[in-house]
Every structure is written in structure tokens, then in C-alpha cells.
């Protein structure tokens, strides 16, 4: 991509933005000129808020990724723990930020605690998954060599696995960097004194449209900058990107009975951890597993509770699923289109990479402002949240098509369409499925955030409402339901992935 096309892309984007702002009138959208004017008038305020958010995001980024590295090392040393570690990590990743935020605030008190923890929670999983793959990405002969010298798993980890995993770690860090900013901003909604999230709330109440779009622009700019910076550092450290193995380690192998035993063990472990975590806390808000079971099964109003939960779940799924599927289809579709018409890519790709970094808490109110509170706004937002990662991953996947096979097609005079259909798309499938898996919690997060901040429906609203009327049994129940729903949908996608890849890309699913 030349500098000229890049500047052309930037100019088109700014021109479109300004044009829309002029069309939309004063209460909806501020253009780049309005944003620059506002920023010029309030540089100190914005710089301080950005610094606070960035500092919390950085702490969370470091802690979350350290946790991911430690978690990934456990199964490398004790392979039998892989199922438990990966399952537990997935469940924690699926916890809804809207419900964990206030609980963390009560536990940690005033200060930056919840912001940092939520940022850490937002990043660790996207590092852990590539890292688990990276710790296995080496010729088995290297491990044989370690064994021949009579050394154990620790030596294997230190001398072979850790080094082989570095490229995967860097790839994971780059993807997770923008998510840290999102986590920190959601944390600020729980009563932080300063930061970009605080300003977002303030300005949307005050109807200060230029200020609101300025915060959104700065948050987006920061997210793009950290994404680019981590990517640049990664390329400096390691010029060659690895052939990315995106499939998760295969969990739960074996007979149905053994799978059930594994699942039961995981659930039991989660219940024990939950019980330990809330022990000693006031039962008014820190509900035990038994309280939640009572609320949904044998309390006098259990039937009503179940009905409210089901209604909310259906409302959320009705918008999250179409948005999710649309995002996947658009992401893969655009990537394929650009592979066929590479000229467009120079203009489109930078924006797709940039836009995927924008924190949803700033975009949610804006998209709803633009598209209204009906289904369209929520579906669009969920689709956007899924679209950008899918698009970027699919582009990467399309490039993985083996050169010799493409040469073979060319020597038979097969055109770009045939090459795409028979070589590039099959090569893209692992990437598509990887983003489809990771997209599940992201889609649920997007849908519930819009419901909470804007539309007042579904699970997002139920969580916010339960907290406001002190119905903490319902809040914990919703949290369990959302987590279980995300984890189950994730498992469904992972199941489909295994079946498809076993045919289309068997090298990905071999242990």
C-alpha cells in the first residue's frame, strides 16, 4: 500500500464523516471540524482523562496477559489439566461485564481496582488461546530430543515450548490491546472519579454532542494507537509472522461418559470457586450458589423469575443471533471480495483494522443515536462488533493459501474465482471459525451493552434493573445465565468447527 492511497483513504473517511455531520444536524453527530474545535478548547481535560484510562488499561493489560501466560503454562506442565484450565478460562471470559462491574466495585471499594480488573478480564482470553496453540507449535522431534536427554516437562517448557510460543504470544497481545481500553472504560461506569468513560456519561447527559464525539474519537484513536504500537513492537522483535494455528486445543476427547465426567468436574470446580469467592461477604449482595438455585427453582416466586429471565434471554438472542451471523457473513464476504479485487483493499483495510478497535461503550450510544432504538440499531452494533475481527482474521486466512497449489491452478489457467473458491476459501476456514468462536461472547457483550445503555430491553436491562432495585439474586442468576449461554454457544460453534475442519483443514484439528 502506498502512502498516496493511505492518504486518499483518510481523506475520504474524514470527508464522509464531515458530510454526514452536516446532513444530520446538531443533535446527532459532530464532524471532524467540530471535534477538533472542541479538543482545541479543552486539551487539558481530555489529556488527563485519556491518561487515566490508558494507565488503568495498561495495568489491566499487563496483569491479564501475565495471568494468560501462567494459565497457559499449567497444561504445558500437567497436560491432564488442559480441559479444566481452558474450560474455566472460557467461563470467566463469558462473565458479563455489566454484572461483574458493580460486584467488583463493592469488593474493591473506591479507586482504580474495578477498572484494572475489567481490563484484565477483557484481554486474557484473546492471549490465552493463541498461546495454548503456540505452546504446541513445534516439530515433535524437538520434544523427543529433550526426552532423549532425560529431561522433564519443565525443561521442555523452558527450552522448547516457551520459545516456540513467542510469535503466538505477540499475535495475541496485539489483538487484546484495544480490548483493555474497553474494559477500563466499562470499569469507570461503576463509580470512577475520572477517565474517558466518566466523560462519556457526563456528555451524553448534557447533550454536548461535539464533546461526546470528541471522547469517542479519542477513545478510538487510543485503541487504534495501542493496536498499532503493540503490532509494531511485535514486528521489531520478530520479523516473520508464524503460520497461525487458530483451532483451540481439542477438549473433552473420549467417550460420552468421559466427556460428561469432565463437564461435571468443571461445573463443580466453578461452584467451589464461586462459593469461596463470596464466603465472608454480606449475603444481601454476594449470593451463594444455593441462593441462586433457590431463586430459580424453589422460591415462592421462582416461576416469575424464570419467566422474566426467559423473556429477557429471548429478547437478547433475537437481536444478537442475527447480528452475529450478519457480522460473520459480512466479514468473510468482504475479505473474499477484496481478495478478488485487491485494488479496493488499500482503501478498505486500514479502516477495517482501525474500526475494530473502537470501544463499544462509546459507539453504542452513537449508533443508537444514528439508527434508533429499534432492532436495527442493536443488530448493527452486534454485527459491527463481530464484523471487524472476522474480516481481519479472514484476510489473514486467505493469505495462508499454499503457494504451490495456487501455482498448480495457475498452470491450468484457472482464474481468480476458481482459485478463491477451491483454494483460498478452504484455507480461510480455520480463521473464520476461530473468529466465529471468539465472536460469541463479543456478540453477547455488544447486545447486552446496547440494551443496558440505550434500548432498555433484554438481559442487559435485566442486569441493570436488578442491581438498581437490589434484586441481587436475579442479578447473579442473570450472570449465570449469560455466562452459560455464551459458553454453550461457544461450544456449539467449536463443535461445528471440529466437524468442518476435520474435512477441510485436518492439520488444524490433529492433536
Amino acid at each position, binding site marked *: 500500500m502506498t502512502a498516496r492511497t493511505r492518504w486518499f483513504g483518510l481523506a475520504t473517511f474524514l470527508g464522509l464523516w464531515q458530510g454526514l455531520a452536516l446532513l444530520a444536524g446538531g443533535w446527532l453527530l459532530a464532524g471532524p471540524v467540530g471535534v477538533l474545535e472542541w479538543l482545541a478548547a479543552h486539551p487539558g481535560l481530555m489529556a488527563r482523562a485519556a491518561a487515566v484510562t490508558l494507565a488503568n488499561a495498561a495495568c489491566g493489560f499487563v496483569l491479564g496477559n501475565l495471568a494468560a501466560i501462567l494459565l497457559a503454562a499449567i497444561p504445558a506442565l500437567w497436560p491432564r489439566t488442559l480441559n479444566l484450565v481452558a474450560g474455566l478460562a472460557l467461563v470467566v471470559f463469558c462473565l458479563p461485564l455489566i454484572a461483574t462491574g458493580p460486584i467488583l466495585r463493592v469488593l474493591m471499594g473506591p479507586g482504580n481496582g474495578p477498572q484494572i480488573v475489567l481490563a484484565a478480564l477483557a484481554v486474557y482470553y484473546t492471549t490465552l488461546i493463541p498461546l495454548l496453540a503456540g505452546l504446541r507449535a513445534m516439530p515433535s522431534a524437538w520434544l523427543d530430543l529433550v526426552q532423549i536427554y532425560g529431561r522433564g516437562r519443565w525443561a521442555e517448557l523452558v527450552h522448547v515450548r516457551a520459545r516456540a510460543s513467542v510469535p503466538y504470544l505477540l499475535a495475541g497481545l496485539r489483538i487484546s490491546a484495544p480490548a483493555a481500553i474497553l474494559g477500563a472504560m466499562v470499569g469507570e461506569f461503576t*463509580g470512577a472519579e475520572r477517565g474517558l468513560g466518566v466523560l462519556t456519561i457526563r456528555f451524553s*447527559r448534557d*447533550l454536548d454532542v461535539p464533546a461526546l464525539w470528541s471522547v469517542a474519537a479519542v477513545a478510538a484513536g487510543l485503541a487504534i494507537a495501542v493496536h498499532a504500537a503493540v503490532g509494531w513492537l511485535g514486528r521489531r522483535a520478530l520479523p516473520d509472522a508464524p503460520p497461525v494455528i487458530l483451532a483451540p486445543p481439542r477438549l473433552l476427547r473420549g467417550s460420552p461418559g468421559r466427556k460428561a465426567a469432565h463437564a461435571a468436574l468443571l461445573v463443580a470446580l466453578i461452584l467451589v470457586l464461586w462459593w469461596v469467592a463470596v464466603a465472608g461477604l454480606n449475603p444481601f449482595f454476594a449470593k451463594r450458589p444455593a441462593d441462586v438455585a433457590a431463586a430459580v427453582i424453589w422460591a415462592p416466586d421462582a416461576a416469575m423469575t424464570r419467566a422474566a429471565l426467559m423473556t429477557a434471554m429471548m429478547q437478547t438472542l433475537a437481536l444478537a443471533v442475527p447480528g452475529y451471523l450478519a457480522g460473520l457473513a459480512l466479514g468473510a464476504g468482504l475479505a473474499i471480495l477484496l481478495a478478488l479485487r485487491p485494488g479496493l483493499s488499500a482503501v478498505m483495510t486500514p479502516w477495517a483494522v482501525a474500526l475494530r478497535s473502537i470501544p463499544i461503550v462509546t459507539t453504542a450510544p452513537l449508533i443508537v443515536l444514528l439508527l434508533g432504538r429499534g432492532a436495527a440499531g442493536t443488530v448493527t452494533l452486534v454485527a459491527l462488533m463481530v464484523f471487524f475481527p472476522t474480516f481481519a482474521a479472514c484476510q489473514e486466512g486467505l493469505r495462508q493459501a499454499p503457494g504451490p497449489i495456487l501455482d498448480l491452478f495457475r498452470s491450468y489457467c484457472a482464474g481468480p474465482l476458481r482459485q478463491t473458491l477451491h483454494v483460498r476459501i478452504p484455507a480461510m476456514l480455520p480463521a473464520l471459525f476461530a473468529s466465529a468462536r471468539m465472536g460469541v461472547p463479543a456478540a453477547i457483550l455488544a447486545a447486552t451493552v446496547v440494551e443496558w445503555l440505550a434500548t432498555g430491553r433484554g438481559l442487559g436491562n435485566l442486569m441493570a434493573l436488578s442491581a438498581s432495585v437490589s434484586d441481587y439474586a436475579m442479578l447473579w442468576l442473570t450472570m449465570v445465565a449469560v455466562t452459560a449461554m455464551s459458553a454453550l454457544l461457544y461450544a456449539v460453534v467449536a463443535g461445528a468447527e471440529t466437524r468442518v475442519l476435520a474435512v477441510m483443514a485436518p492439520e488444524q484439528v490433529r492433536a
Partner: protein
Amino acid sequence: MTPIPLTRRRLMQAGAAGLALGGLGLVRPAAAQVPVGLQLSWLHSVQFAGSYIARKNNWWRDAGLEVTLLQGGPNAPVEPPVVAGTALIGISAADYTAAAVAQGAPFRIIGVAMQKNPFAIASMPANPVRVPADLVGKRIGMAVANTPVLQALCTLNDVDIGGVQVVPTQYSAQPLLAGEVDCLLCWETDLPVAMEMQGVPAETMLLADHGYALHSQTYIATTDSIANRRAELVALLGGEVRGWDTYRADTDAAAVLTVETFPDAGLDLETQKLQARRQVPLMFSDLTQANGFGWWSEETVAQNIETLALLGRSVTPDLWDRSILEEIHG
């Protein structure tokens, strides 16, 4: 920690107090400040200016308290920190307190900052809602969660809620300005203030003027604190009372103090001044004039219980405990 400014008067007071206490053998080395938390219900703004005035003037410190003001937010419930003891007092509202009590929280209301509920219906002057009957045939933008509030207003004024079209909206004045709705259910002191600052003044109808009697910005504490930490409660709430009395004397000064205290909160001075003025009629009434800030009577409690019943909350007058206020004003 800001150093205490050492004036001649303070020095002499301290000296006199030291002599008096020293004579009695009561001087303790470096009298320890008791740390307590006050959980606010929303982001820092002039909505809590009374607290900032009390802190700025060291009234709490002089009473032996080291007060932390815990900010609220859209995802920061007030009740758990009070139950957990992180905050000694929380700023809630009668309906939220009633809901928490129904869930087993041992709360009492020990002071009422907003005598009149701040809920209002905002509309454009060209198509105004001035009385509840005007709602018929209008589209009202509100959170679906607030449907019981609208229902209560309609019941109190014999308006058929079926004639009002509820449009679920986010909490913003934008749908009203864009003409997507004819009116909004909002607080008197936020969205209408934002509209006026943007040069589009709104018509507002306070629900409290049409039978919706519900104490708001209520100070809550646990029964345990009321029994065992009385002195601290009296000191904390006493500072609040003094702060709000000072606020009333000069709301502009309170707005200036708020903006200066929180330079990173994105507060606009003129907006804060307007909000500060609009709060006054909600917080101060003939009742507070006669009995002091935060007061309530058996009659207002009875009205609150009626409104709460319409909202589906059944409470008894025991929810209100005036003993702390009586100690302050007595």
C-alpha cells in the same frame, strides 16, 4: 491531605481547648479521625454540593470524621456499600430503599434531601404537557423500567395510561429535540437543564406537583449503625445539613466550588449554576424552613407510603427514623 490553615483565631481556640482538656487530663496524642464513607448516588456534580461545602470547610474533620465521598455512576449501586459497611451513609431514594428493604437490607431513612421528587415530564413549549391530562395522545420517551412511575402518576390523576404511547428511549434529550417523542420522563435537574443550556428551553411538569409524593436523595443507614455508631451518624449528617444550608445561601458559589473541586469531571460552570438553582425548590420547603434541612412529618411519610403502594412497594412508617435529625436540630 490538605494542611489545616493556621489562623490566629484557630490557634487560640486550639490553645484554649488544649488547656481545658489538658486540665481535665483528657488530651490524647493526635486525636484519630474516624474514617467513614458517604456513598453518592451519581457522578460528582452540584447535586451533592452540600457535601463538598462540608468537606471544604472542615466541618466533618472538626467533628472527628475523615469522610470519603464515594462517587456513584450508571453501574454503581448505592445499597451494597452501605450494607457492607464501606459507606456509613448512602444517598438513595424512598422507592429504591423500599426495594432493598424488601430484599432483606436493614435500612432506615435518616434524612430527606429532596422533599419533592425530581421526576418531571419535559416537553417543548409548542406542544406542552402542563397537567397530567395533557399526556393523553402524546408519545412519551422513557426507560421501560420506569413504567410504574407513569402508571402511578396516571392513577393519581385519573388519566387512562392506555391513551399515552410509551416509546422506550435512552436517557437523553435527543429524542425530544428530534421530534421522535412529544415529552420525556426525566429529572427536573438534568435533561431540561441540558436543553436550556443548548438554547432550547423545555416546559416541565413536576410529578410531585400532581400527587407523586416520594422522598428522593434520602440518606440511608443500617439499623446496626443507628444503634452503635450514633455519634458518627450525627456528625456526618450534621455536616450535610450545615453544607446544604450554606448551599442555599449562595448556589452560584456552590457551583463554583463543585467545578473547582472536580476539574476532571467535565463539568460546565454555567450548567452547574442553573442546576444548582433548579434544585432549591425541590430541597427546601416550608417544612424544612420550620424544622431544618432533611426533615419530614408524619403526614409526608403517609403520602410517601401511598405513592410507594402504587409502585408496588409496601412499607410501614418505621422505615423512617428521625432520631438522628432530632439530635442534630434539637
